[in-house]
């Protein structure tokens, strides 16, 4: 049975890739996730400047998923070089995706240019975080023209593969993915969290998150993420990193069938800790055995054939 995935010219031992924003602050942490069975890892999104992020609580679970408002904390891309070098030394064979963001197109391109010089295998453009928003407070990736413009600009500054991370808030997400593909994107990461959402603590009589509102992920996001990935698959030929609400093996198989080549794993860690990687892999393998699949790639997009 083949469980390896070739994507954007990179070899992944398995399709499970740590999603951006989870355990991605340090190189040693990312390497620890690789050691625990991830086929690839994604760094936290880095911006030009250092940011402390929002006050706590920044990340909470609720029945039905997770909500977070980290506030894009990060040490700033120039300070982060050592983390990528540490990762490369500790996990030389496990691909790493370097995530970059920006409040403006210029900042994002500059970050990508710096990320290009780091030992990362692929650059993920976070065009979907609410903090990297246009004047309408919408993520860049909600606008097909802005998405195309940024992808084009980044394509000029790096020869590394680029994946464009989209927001589930986008209207006609398939067409936006298509625009990114036309401008030279090598993959689409779909999707980021949805929101803004809120939890209210009724006894404390206050919103539960420090920032009051945040993005929802986990089980609540899964059907939306599946819908997005399914639609994107109908519009593009480049691979999709399907992310959003994959908590167990069943979710992972659904995401593959919707059209994802790689699977972003994040919220599963909240429920099953780092064992999530081994657990989900085992479940996919058992399913493949039971259903007679010989290659993981045979599952990709299979739900479109009926």
């Amino acid at each position, binding site marked *: 049975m083949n469980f390896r995935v070739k994507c954007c010219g990179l070899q992944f031992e398995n399709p499970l890739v740590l999603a951006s924003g989870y355990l*991605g602050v340090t190189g040693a*942490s990312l390497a620890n996730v690789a050691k625990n069975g991830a086929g690839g890892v994604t760094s936290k999104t880095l911006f030009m400047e250092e940011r402390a992020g929002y006050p706590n609580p920044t990340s909470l679970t609720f029945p039905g998923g997770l909500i977070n408002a980290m506030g894009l*904390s990060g*040490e700033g891309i120039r*300070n982060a070089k050592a983390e990528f070098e540490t990762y490369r030394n500790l996990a030389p064979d496990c691909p790493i995706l370097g995530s970059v963001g920006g409040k403006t197109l210029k900042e994002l391109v500059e970050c990508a240019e710096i990320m290009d010089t780091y030992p990362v295998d692929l650059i993920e453009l976070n065009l979907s975080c609410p903090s990297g928003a246009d004047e309408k407070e919408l993520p860049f990736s909600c606008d097909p023209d802005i998405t195309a413009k940024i992808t084009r600009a980044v394509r000029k500054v790096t020869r590394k593969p680029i994946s464009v991370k989209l927001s589930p808030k986008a209207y006609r997400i398939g067409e936006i993915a298509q625009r990114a593909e036309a401008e030279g994107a090598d993959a689409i990461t779909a999707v980021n969290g949805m929101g803004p959402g809120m939890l209210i*603590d009724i006894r404390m009589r206050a919103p539960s998150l*420090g920032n009051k509102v945040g993005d929802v992920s986990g089980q609540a996001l899964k059907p939306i993420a599946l819908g997005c990935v399914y639609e994107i698959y109908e519009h593009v030929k480049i691979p999709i990193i399907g992310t959003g609400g994959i908590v167990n093996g069943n979710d992972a198989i659904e995401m593959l069938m919707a059209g994802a080549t790689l699977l972003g794993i994040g919220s599963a860690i909240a429920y099953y800790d780092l064992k999530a990687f081994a657990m989900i892999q085992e479940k996919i393998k058992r399913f493949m055995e039971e259903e007679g699949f010989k290659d993981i790639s045979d599952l990709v997009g299979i739900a479109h054939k009926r």
Partner: protein
Amino acid sequence: MHLPLKVHRIREENSTFRTYIFKHDLRAKPGQFAMVWLPGVDEVPMSVGWQDKDEMWIGISKRGDCTTAIFDQIKIGDRLGVRGPFGKPFELKEGYKKIILVGGGYGTPPLLFLAKEAREKGMEVVVILGARSPEHVLYEKEFAGLGCEVVNSANHNGKKGHAIEIFAERMEDGKVDCVYTCGPEKMMVKVAEIAQKNGVDSQLSLERHMKCGFGICGQCCIDGTGARVCKDGPVFSGKQALSLEEFGHYTRTGSGKRIALE
């Protein structure tokens, strides 16, 4: 999800340290921590300093925005949001006869809770308390009340590093099964090294900037293994800790940037 816990009692230990007492059984074990939330301000990790079926103690030192706001705003009867317990507790192996606890300043609370459990198991407990001055030594009476032998290093004319010297001498006596410490990291480095030199196991409670508290965000990960202090710790064996390149040298801010330890 937070538990909305009403403050039942507040003990003023000194001008910058208070014990907040709640009538609640969080089912915490010694060494575990809770996230304590003051809405509109922040949420910070705090060791559980005592837990029995009636009461939970959380010792809070006034040193940042959130703890200062708690000192200023929270009175008896007010609520704090509490999540937890989180993290790995101290390991108190069956069969231990004698243990030494080394508490540095405001790192002392989890050791009080540990002393309670050790004394309930009939172990001999020696507690060495260090602090920058005598009024900053915590819980001396409570340790004594549990039947621990208490050595207050600050009363030995409060010389810096004296707790370590006393600890080193007490290790020479032998027959110590395990050493437990919580306090400034550079102190814990010395405690772990001295224990190791004497062939005795040690357990340390580490502190790092925490955000989620349950092992997903990666903010508190420590170099070289990338272990999460909130989930894989906060208690680490001395052997583990001494093998970490970060331990005793640097920590990280809320942005993730490295800063040297004081």
